[in-house]
C-alpha cells in the first residue's frame, strides 16, 4: 500500500539507527522516541504522545533486528543495542508485528451500512441460506452468530449497501498465516508464513516490520572485512539515477565491490532452460520456475505435491553469491533487494550471508549524507544480459528461458502474476491433476508485477518497470554473452 506517512516513519527510524551507529552514539539510542516526539510536540497519528513514543520504541527494536512479540517493555532500547552489537547472526524469524502499532482492526465480517434503504424486495433476506438477516426498524440487520461471511447478500443488494469489513493484513495474506489473536492484535503463524511480505505492504498502520540486519551489515563493514553488495535486478529505477551511481553509492558506504544479481539470473535462465528441455523431452506435462523465494516457501509448506513440477534450478541470488565466494572466499555477501522472502532464503543459502532491503539501502544513503546523483558511475566487473536484467518484471523469467532455449517448438509459457487465494488454489489443482491447462512453463511471481512490486521498494512499479526495460534493452542478448564464470558454479 502506498502510504507516505508510514513510509516516512519507518525510514526515519532506520536513518536514526544507522546514524547512531556511524556516529558511535548507540548508547544514546534510548532517546530516539523522545527525539522523534519531543515534549509538547504535535501528535499526528495516535491518541497521545506516549503511545506514539511506545510505537517508535518498538519500531526501533525491529530496526535493531529483534522481534517485538517477546518485548517485556522493561528492557531498554540500550539493552537491545547491546544484544544487537554482540550477536553473531540475525533472528531466524524475519517478520515481527509491532503490537503497539497494530490497530486491532474490527474483525473481518459482512456488514449492513446506513445506505440500506429497507426495500420491499429484500433480496438479502431471501438469498441468505443461513437465515442470518432480519429486518429491524425497517432495515436489514445481520446476526453475527448465524452469518457465515459468504457475501451472497452483498452481491444481491441493489444499493450496494452491504460491505465486507476487511482486516488488511489477513486479507492480503495468500495462505492465512496472519490473524488476530485473543488480544485483538495481528499475530503471524510462522509455520504457515511464506514470507511474501503482502502483510507488510498491506497494513495501513505499518505494524508489520522486517527484522532489519542493517546493524549486522554495518558491523561487518566496520570490522574491515571485504563486504560485497549484490544488487537485485529490481534496483534499477529505485532512485532517479543510473544503477551505476547506486552501485558507487554503496561503495561509498563501505562495500568493497558490487555485483549485479542479473549476472546470477543469466545462470538461472540457462540452467532452467536445460532443466525444462530435459523434463519436456522425458514427457513431463509442465514445469514451474523456482526463482521466487516466497513461491518456494509456498511449495515447501503448503503444496508439497507441486515439488516434482518445480525446477531444481537455484535462484539468481544463490548463483551470484556463489560467484562472489568463488572469487573472494573470505568475502561477506549481502543481497540487496525488495523482497522479504529473500531473508528466509538467505538463511538456507550456503553463500549468502546477509540481506538488506531497498528501504534500508535508501536509509543508508541518507545516513551517510550521500547525494547519489553526484556519485561517479561504477563499472561492474562483469556484464549481465538483457534477459537477466529483466528478471524483476513479470514475464521476464519465462522470456529468459525462451531465449536461452533458442529453439523449442512446444514452448508454451504462462505467468502466475501474484500469489493470492485464487492463484494458490490453481497451483494446488495443477499439482493434483499433474497438468497445467495454461502452459508448460509456468513462471511464478509472488508479487503482482514481479519483484518491482516488492514490499520494500523505494519507487513505484510502473516507473521502475519502465527504467528496467530501458536498461535491459541497452544490454546484450543472453546468447551473445559467453557463459564464462557461470560454467564454474554448481548448477
Amino acid at each position, binding site marked *: 500500500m*502506498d502510504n*507516505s*506517512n508510514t*513510509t*516516512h516513519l519507518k*525510514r*526515519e527510524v532506520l*536513518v536514526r539507527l544507522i546514524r547512531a551507529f556511524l556516529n558511535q552514539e548507540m548508547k544514546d539510542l534510548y532517546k530516539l522516541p523522545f527525539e*522523534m516526539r519531543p515534549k509538547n510536540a504535535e501528535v499526528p497519528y495516535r491518541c497521545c504522545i506516549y503511545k506514539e513514543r511506545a510505537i517508535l520504541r518498538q519500531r526501533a527494536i525491529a530496526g535493531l533486528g529483534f522481534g517485538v512479540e517477546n518485548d517485556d517493555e522493561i528492557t531498554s532500547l540500550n539493552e537491545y543495542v547491546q544484544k544487537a552489537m554482540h550477536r553473531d547472526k540475525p533472528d531466524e524469524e524475519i517478520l515481527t508485528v509491532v503490537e503497539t502499532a497494530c490497530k486491532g482492526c474490527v474483525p473481518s465480517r459482512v456488514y449492513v451500512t446506513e445506505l440500506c434503504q429497507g426495500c420491499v424486495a429484500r433480496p438479502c433476506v431471501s438469498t441468505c441460506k443461513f437465515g442470518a438477516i432480519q429486518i429491524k426498524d425497517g432495515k436489514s440487520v445481520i446476526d453475527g452468530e448465524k452469518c457465515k461471511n459468504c457475501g451472497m447478500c452483498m452481491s444481491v443488494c441493489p444499493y450496494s449497501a452491504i460491505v465486507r469489513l476487511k482486516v488488511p493484513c489477513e486479507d492480503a495474506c495468500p495462505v492465512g498465516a496472519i490473524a488476530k489473536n485473543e488480544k485483538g492484535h495481528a499475530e503471524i503463524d510462522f509455520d504457515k508464513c511464506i514470507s511474501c511480505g503482502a502483510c507488510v505492504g498491506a497494513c495501513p498502520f505499518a505494524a508489520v516490520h522486517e527484522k532489519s540486519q542493517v546493524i549486522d551489515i554495518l558491523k561487518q563493514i566496520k570490522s574491515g572485512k571485504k563486504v560485497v553488495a549484490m544488487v537485485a535486478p529490481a534496483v534499477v529505477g529505485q*532512485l*532517479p539515477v543510473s544503477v551505476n551511481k547506486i552501485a558507487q*553509492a554503496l561503495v561509498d558506504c563501505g562495500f568493497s565491490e558490487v555485483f549485479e544479481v542479473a549476472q546470477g539470473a543469466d545462470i538461472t535462465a540457462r540452467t532452467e532452460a536445460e532443466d525444462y528441455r530435459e523434463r519436456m523431452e522425458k514427457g513431463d506435462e509442465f514445469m514451474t520456475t523456482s526463482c521466487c523465494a516466497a513461491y518456494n516457501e509456498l511449495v515447501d509448506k503448503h503444496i508439497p505435491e507441486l515439488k516434482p513440477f518445480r525446477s531444481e534450478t537455484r535462484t539468481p541470488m544463490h548463483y551470484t553469491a556463489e560467484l562472489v565466494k568463488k572469487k573472494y572466499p573470505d568475502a561477506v555477501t549481502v543481497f540487496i533487494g525488495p523482497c522479504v522472502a529473500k531473508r528466509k532464503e538467505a538463511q538456507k543459502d550456503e553463500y549468502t550471508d546477509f540481506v538488506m532491503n531497498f*528501504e534500508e539501502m*535508501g*536509509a543508508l*544513503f*541518507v545516513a551517510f*549524507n*550521500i*547525494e*547519489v*546523483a*553526484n556519485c561517479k558511475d561504477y563499472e561492474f566487473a562483469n556484464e549481465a544480459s538483457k534477459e537477466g536484467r529483466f528478471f524483476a518484471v513479470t514475464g521476464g523469467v519465462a522470456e529468459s528461458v525462451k531465449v536461452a532455449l533458442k529453439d523449442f517448438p512446444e514452448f508454451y509459457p504462462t505467468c502466475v502474476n501474484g500469489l493470492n487465494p485464487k492463484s494458490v488454489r490453481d497451483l494446488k489443482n495443477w499439482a493434483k491433476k499433474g497438468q497445467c491447462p495454461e502452459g508448460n512453463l509456468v513462471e511464478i511471481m509472488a508479487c503482482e508485477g514481479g519483484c518491482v512490486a516488492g514490499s520494500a521498494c*523505494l*519507487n*513505484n512499479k510502473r*516507473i521502475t518497470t519502465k527504467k528496467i526495460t530501458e536498461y535491459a534493452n541497452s544490454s546484450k542478448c543472453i546468447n551473445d554473452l559467453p557463459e564464462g564464470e557461470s560454467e564454474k558454479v554448481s548448477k
Partner: protein
Amino acid sequence: MEEAGKILVELCFGTTCFVMGASKLQEIESIIPPQYRKRVEVKAHTCLDLCKNATYMKAPFVKVDGEIISEATVEKVLKAIESKVNG
C-alpha cells in the same frame, strides 16, 4: 526560467527527499486539477539543499512559489497550489 505569472512548483528529487517519500510526487503534474494546470509550472531538482543534517526528518521538500513545504505529500502540494491560485 519560469514563465511570467505562473506558479512555480519545485520538487526535490535528491536522495534524502526521494527516500523519505518524494517518489510519490513524481506524477503530481498529471494530477493537478485541470483548472489550475495552465497556471502551474513544475520543475524537478536534483537537490534543493534543504535536507542536509538534522532537517532530513522533514524531507521531502517542495517549494511552491518559493514557499517551502516540508514533509510534502501530494495533498499538501495541491493545497498550496490552490491557495496560491486563489490568492
